């Protein structure tokens, strides 16, 4: 994820209250993330996992990621190459998990104005914005800088690696 906003991202739309069982179905939890990702959101959109492309964005209604602590819910989206999730609100637990895995979440009160298949640009400045092809600008809540750094680093594991190296030196 770069700071630049030139890139256009294709929008996939889902509704409100998308739960972790929909993102990472329990029946596949004993498998690796590749298998879980292949079933991501199939209860709502059987076409999603097979057709989504790296760099696409997922746009949802409120309360995205409610339910379990299983971080595979965020991991599956990361595995599929989702560049960002854009929704009015998230489960707090999912929010932490997503950033820990390096998945960007944008809290956007007007997210639901975005349409399926639309192309949007992301401007990740202090007050992030989603820009539509028609020039509409949707303002998002600011993301604490340590969480943006976590996304840039590719997740908490990489942050911890650096910390461990510093401790050894």
């Amino acid at each position, binding site marked *: 994820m770069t700071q630049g906003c030139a890139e256009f991202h294709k929008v996939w739309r889902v509704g409100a*209250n998308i*739960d972790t*069982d*929909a993102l990472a*179905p*329990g*029946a596949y*939890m*004993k*498998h690796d993330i590749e298998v879980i990702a292949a079933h991501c959101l199939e*209860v709502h959109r059987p076409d999603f996992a097979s057709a989504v492309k790296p760099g696409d964005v997922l746009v949802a209604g*409120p*309360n995205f990621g*409610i*339910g*379990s*602590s*299983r*971080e595979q819910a*965020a991991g599956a989206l990361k595995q599929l190459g989702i560049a960002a999730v854009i929704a009015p*609100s998230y*489960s*707090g*637990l999912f*929010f*932490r*998990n997503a950033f*820990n*895995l390096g998945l960007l979440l944008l809290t956007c009160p007007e997210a639901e104005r975005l349409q399926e298949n639309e192309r949007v640009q992301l401007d990740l400045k202090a007050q992030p914005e989603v820009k539509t092809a028609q020039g509409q600008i949707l303002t998002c809540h600011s993301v*604490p800088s*340590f969480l943006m750094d976590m996304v840039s680093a590719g*997740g*908490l*594991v990489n942050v*911890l*690696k650096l*910390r*461990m*190296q510093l401790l*050894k030196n």
Partner: protein
Amino acid sequence: MRKQIESPLARSAPASGATLAQKLIARAAAQSHVNVGDVLTCQVDLAMFHDSSGPRRLKPMLADIGAQIWDRNKVVLVLDHYVPARDADAEKIIRITRDVAKEWQLPHVIDSEGICHVVLPERGHLKPGHFCVGGDSHSPTGGAFGTYMFGIGATEMLGVVATGEIWVQVPQTLRMVWHGALQKGVCAKDMMLHMIGKFGMNGGNYQALEFAGDTVRGLGMQERMTLSNMSAEMGAQVGLIAADSITRDYLKSVGVSQADIEQCDYFETDETADFQRFDFEASQLSPQVAAPHSPENTKAVSEFAHIKPSVAYIGACTGAKLVDLRAAAEVLKGRKVAAGVQLMVAPASAKDQAQAQREGVMQILTDAGARVLPNACGACAGYGGTFEEGATVISSTARNFQGRMGPASVQVYLASPATVAASALQGHIADVREVLA
């Protein structure tokens, strides 16, 4: 009807005092006072993880970052999600978990003896005043002990086991104050379903819930645990209850030494602290049922009399503790479940099951027709042993998301263990108050 029960008093108290949540975080962050919204690094007193979220994920990541467990005495590992193994994949996960437990020389491993949130306090691991994390979303259960405990994912757990620290943003407190006595047959699960119905699945907005008032103070520890447990379904980070003499008695009963009990911090919310307060009248609460496919689809039990379950499930950390088994047995004593209903009981811990056995509770349940399942997460986690295509289930568990406990066609209604038992008896979703009358 619901309108009459609660009268939210959005009050603006002077922000001079501190909430229970603020005091717990201040202690863990070694600060004299913390403000709502502050982001702080806290020292973790205890980290709990299980066979799904734990070793199989943590071991490779710990090796990858070149770290060791910061303090193995502060780690508790519970095997509850994949036990007993149903297939080769589950067997492999359990084997890895046991091997890693040996390799890491973990002193606190609880293997196939019950569900993490129930066995953790049962073994005296939760202490009032402590700051704890769990690799499971129902970790807010620990809040019943005046402990700041919340759920985290495996990668964040890696951070905790490597450093002993975690960041937290000081939450606002939504204080749920319950007054008066619950009617016979109505219990903590009904209180919680009612609150989730009122505030919604994310109504807690990752803030702190606190349960207070004379109704809550009158509840035993396991009923309090049910309230804290389902704070997860309201989207709160924690569900706290100030520790009191009932907490102390429980700690004593599970073998915590008097010296350790005295050393705990017994924090309470100052009346002058800044919190949102909501009042509820316990005596007006009827048994509650949440319809498929969300815990927030809650209505009074009378709305569901036409639903005829094929399965009645008493299980999970939420709804199969000793107190829950007793409640079901009170309903089913000397009776048999209706034809066409399969009653399944998965006691939440071996210890609770043994006590239920001694009290004759297990006998009552099996005489009524119950099939007793292992002391594990079972169908609730959805990892195996789930329900069949087209099943209609009334369940004492916490979540009824579509596809969680079986195929998408499965319809799960959530209710208290007493309501599950009454419904099994009548062959339709039934009002336990009528059965007990």
